[in-house]
């Protein structure tokens, strides 16, 4: 259950202004959404995990538990290996090697380039970007005071 205070805290983090009425509305709606995310696991009687995602037996839950899922979490079975998180679904290896290559997410490689101005044209381009800003001064973006 997400509280009104939670919503207020999060809107502050997200730098998002909300009216009192909206805070109440979002509290209701977000609670419903989080409820769905969390309780889906309950419907599966083979597991007592409170959280759909924690239900998956291979998931490594041996680390310190965050407040939400402390209660009913079962210890991970010894036989299963921990699952690595995926942040990038397609790997370079796959792109190079054709259809038989593995798709495990650990083979992603970094793509690096120099951070440099490439041509005169990019000056025109950066000028175009500056023109989109509400306030500029001497080629800099201007903001209101922080304090």
């Amino acid at each position, binding site marked *: 259950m997400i509280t009104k205070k939670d919503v207020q805290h*999060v809107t502050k983090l997200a730098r998002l202004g909300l009216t009192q009425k909206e805070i109440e509305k979002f509290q209701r709606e977000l609670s419903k*959404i989080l409820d769905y*995310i969390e309780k889906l696991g309950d419907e599966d009687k083979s597991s007592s995990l409170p959280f759909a995602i924690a239900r998956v037996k291979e998931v490594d839950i041996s680390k310190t538990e965050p407040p939400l899922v402390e209660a009913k979490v079962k210890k991970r079975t010894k036989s299963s290996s921990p699952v690595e998180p995926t942040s990038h*679904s397609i790997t370079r290896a796959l792109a190079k090697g054709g259809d038989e290559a593995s798709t495990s997410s650990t083979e992603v490689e970094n793509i690096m380039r120099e951070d440099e101005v490439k041509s005169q044209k990019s000056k025109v381009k950066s000028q*175009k970007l500056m023109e989109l*800003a*509400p306030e500029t001064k001497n080629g800099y973006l201007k903001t209101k*005071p922080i304090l």
Partner: protein
Amino acid sequence: MELENLTISKTHRGLIKKEFSALEICQAYLEKIESEDKKINAFLTITKDLALSQAKKVDDMISTGRKIPLISAVPCAIKDIILVEDVKCTAGSKILENYIAPYDATVIKKLKGENCVILGKTNLDEFAMGSSTENSAFFPTKNPHNLARVPGGSSGGSAAAVAADECIFALGSDTGGSIRQPASFCGMVGLKPTYGAVSRFGLIAFASSLDQIGPITKTVEDAKIVFDVIKGKDEMDSTSVESPEIKNWELKIKNLVIGVPKEYFTMPTGRQVKGIDPEVEKVIKQAIKKYEEMGAKVEEISLPHTEYALPCYYIIAPSEASANLARYDGIKYGHSETRNPESEIRNLLDVYLKSREEGFGPEVRRRIILGTYVLSAGYYEAYYLRAQKVRTLVKEDFDKAFRNVDAIFTPVSPTPAFKLGEKIDDPLTMYLSDIFTISVNLAGLPALSLPCGKVDNLPVGLQIIGKPFEESKILEIGKIFEKNL
């Protein structure tokens, strides 16, 4: 001019045989938009001058006897979340209401390079967040098959524009089904390419690990033509890759093995919501049977983590969105309270809070708050990290299944197009309409939405999922169905 059955190759033949000029066809579509779009509301911006100048270029080329690429002079529409230089790009949001794109997206550069004609920018759910195009800050788009129904979303304007013959093809973007579901609702072909197959440079970011640009077309052949133009590695998007060639492959229906995941037909889509509509199920099963009759082997498969895909997605996508949308701060571009002379802002924080409050609509705020919440201290591991692990499991389900099958067939959506207003007040029910398309984005796979029948005169789409970079295979598989219809 008869626009109804025009496809890319028919247009090309017409131009070569001088049955019509590029300018004529461009004007015919502009007139059609002018007279018809009041009913549909597919377009946010019409780029008449740009379209006419591109068409004129092609006519000049033809008159001097030069060869023109297939897609030259073909009138298309672009989802208003893809940048076209010097044209307004709103992302369906008030926060970008007056934003003029300072450069071309890579896909637009490629289309312009072949002198494809851009007619305008199409409506969408704000920042592509939604499944009905009702979340547009400007107006909802209507389904050309039934004006009381939604066109789907978020690329609803693109799908409706193609379905209403207001263009020959359109580009959309797909983060959780936003090309496939509207294509299905509007009876069009939609292709969501493999993650990385098409450059995302110039696509306004929603969830960067899931977003892909792809075509919405009338035929599978057109989808292939457009995909071949827009795909490829781009140094401006380091996640883009060159699609490997598929060698020595020719579709023989007798050797084709189709997997049908049982979870997609048995899974309840939530407590209040029923699973797949039995009428939709019937149409999908008939389509699958057709392949079987043509000689393909159909096997039941299991994707055991299917039911966790949706919760997983609604953690990952809002998380990425909350970070991506932090750039709308009222300082660099877009709506800013500093432009308001009556504003009472005192400091920088006020600029952030006020500009974002005024600029973002309800669904975008909801997702920013949800994303910020699940990433906040103390919750990160419970939500985000777990979701990413589940994402691995969803992906492994597909890897395993693809060891035994060439393609996976599922419905695109549990229901045909729903009514305008039916789900807009219940965000969760709206989310559930993406239940069959979301896993594909989590796993980064290519998938085709193919019209395969109707329920109550509303189109139903079959989803054909392929292995990474095997777009050409799923397109060939789709083509067989089209031919035998």
